[in-house]
């Protein structure tokens, strides 16, 4: 592990033009990912986590999307957002790979799964058709698909969601990337299959030594797999900390509320402390601190927007409580 992070995101802001006005999906998001690290990004629907993930590979359709001028996504020192054409293509899938939430929709229904793996290999490596096929079968075997040589010729509709997510992982692994971005990889799957996929992700990360960015709304998944966590709310990063710290000493009221509002399978609970209100729509963020209309600790200072304050190398929080320690102890 070297000191320089493999991926650095600086001031990422993404907006979308819609018929109802401009939607600021992601607002000034910054974070680093070290080599070999697992970074968890947690947040609810509409908090901007998927848009952030797609921006890492410049996969936001422009228009209607718009990535601001100040935004930088430095992969190994190169700004991905400034790349075009071949240079961009050589990073996508080869050095930074992605898997998505819905494996059924994410695979092309009219191509065999084998072809979809092999074409990725051939897009990045100078190998023959037969060699790509061989490698694809090995990958299918690696991700735990039984009878891979036979399955190579299967179409997506012939396989279950769990198997297809394995295929997606095989595609992602095909060029041994430095970073794997997994956007809600287990949300569409049953819980026993989710356990299998998480095991697989952990296994390949150990084996290939890649960095993993895991995006999810499920705090349990984060607790199991992430080294470090970023909590997003309403298009912004509200808290960043090591996984243990986030769960033992959540600094932001939103993080705390989120942890308290999920029922636990491992211990009985008689009342859940729910966060009041609902997630604001991206077209209309609240002014000031975006969480303050739902925050139990909000006071007049929260009418103005707090900044993300760093404390130490790996933790940061966007809350006036963290600044105003007198108030916090009250």
């Amino acid at each position, binding site marked *: 592990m070297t000191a320089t992070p493999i991926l650095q995101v600086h001031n990422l802001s993404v907006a979308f033009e819609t018929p109802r006005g401009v939607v600021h999906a992601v607002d000034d998001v910054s974070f680093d990912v070290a080599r070999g690290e697992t970074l968890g990004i947690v947040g*609810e*629907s509409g908090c901007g986590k998927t848009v952030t993930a797609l921006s890492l590979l410049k996969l936001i359709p422009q228009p209607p999307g718009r990535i601001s001028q100040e935004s930088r996504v430095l992969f190994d020192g190169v700004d991905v957002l400034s790349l075009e054409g071949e240079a961009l293509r050589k990073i996508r899938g080869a050095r930074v790979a992605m898997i998505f939430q819905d494996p059924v929709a994410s695979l092309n229904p009219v191509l065999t799964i084998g072809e979809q793996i092999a074409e990725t290999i051939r897009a990045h490596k100078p190998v023959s058709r037969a060699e790509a096929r061989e490698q694809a079968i090995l990958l299918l075997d690696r991700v735990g698909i039984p009878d891979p040589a036979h399955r190579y010729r299967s179409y997506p509709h012939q396989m*279950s969601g*769990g*198997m297809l997510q394995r295929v997606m992982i095989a595609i992602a692994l095909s060029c041994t990337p430095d970073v794997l971005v997994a956007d809600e990889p287990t949300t569409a799957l*049953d*819980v*026993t*299959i*989710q*356990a*299998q996929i*998480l*095991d697989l992700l952990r296994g390949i990360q150990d084996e290939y030594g890649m960095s993993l960015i895991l995006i999810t*709304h*499920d*705090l*349990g*998944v*984060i*607790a*199991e797999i992430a080294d470090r966590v970023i909590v997003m709310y309403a298009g912004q990063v509200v808290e960043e900390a090591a*996984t*243990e710290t986030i*769960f*033992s000493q959540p600094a932001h009221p939103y993080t705390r*509320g*989120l*942890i*308290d*509002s*999920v*029922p*636990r*399978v*491992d211990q*009985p*609970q008689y*009342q*859940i*402390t*729910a*966060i*009041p209100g*609902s*997630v604001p*729509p991206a077209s209309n963020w609240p002014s000031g601190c975006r969480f303050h209309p*739902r925050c139990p600790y909000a006071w007049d200072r929260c009418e103005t927007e707090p900044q993300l304050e760093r404390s130490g190398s790996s933790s940061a929080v966007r809350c006036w409580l963290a600044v105003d320690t007198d108030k916090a102890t009250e």
Partner: protein
Amino acid sequence: MSTSQALVEVTDLKKSFGTGGWRDRDNRIRAVDGVTFSVAPGETLGLVGESGSGKSTIGRCILRLTTPDSGRVAFDGVDILALGSSEMRKLRRRMQIVFQDAVGSLNPRMKVGAAVKEPIEVHRLATKNEINSQMLALLAEVGLDPELSHRYPHELSGGQAQRAVIARALSVQPDFIVLDEPVAALDVSVQGQVLNLLASLQRARNLTYLLIAHDLSVVRHTCDRVAVMYLGRFVEVSNTSDLFTSPLHPYTAALLSAVPVPDPKKKRNRIVLEGEMPSVSDRPSGCPFYSRCPHPKKNDQCSNVAPELREHEPGRLAACHFAEEPLSI
């Protein structure tokens, strides 16, 4: 209604769906394959299982939204499958359903207020003058701003829509509500609100719930008793606290251990199941769980003889030959 009697009693319920035309009799999928249970008044029974286990089909059969192939469903002592359509319509007032997809459960062309009022009008539960005030009272009861009665469903957030759906279900003053994944589609921070609302409504109105869910933590929080389903059958039925601390069936154990816990310090004995739930159309001859069972003692008996759902401890049933030697989690 006597309290000792079960409110809902289901006996040997079976339901299968055809895949092809009427000629493919052999190709039918047995979604629910002989299920027996009862729900006591005021109780919450949880129905847990992975997708395709048949849990939603049971909910629909109980409300006769689909007609089961065989078996008996008794509501407050009345066999609802034998009722004529007009008697059934009257009985519908006492049993309601709440779906996962809240926005989709509301007519997109009908304002929220009208949707809540409709069942009251249908069953003539209030005079014309009272309907509006009743509707507003219901909205208040579920924690919705009366202003929202003039909105269309697509103008609501998921949580608000689910509250409106609950208000509509309450409008006929039912005794029994089937909750089919009521919070699965909601944001994490909103799930808790809706669960708390359901719990307080149950206390205030003495409601009986059948909660269908795949999320075990929600079930643990909400239910008095839990039935675990696998391939259209019950593999375990138990009171909630025992089920979650010492499951008898290896599938329940595996299911529990697979749920990620939001506590990085907690290290558990993790059972990761091999493979996937077999397709319901080619059901194995012995124990349906045989192919994936992690139990160290599984043997030929398991592959040949399907275990019966038997009572192993008072109030605890399991369908496993080795229920006496459960896996630890």
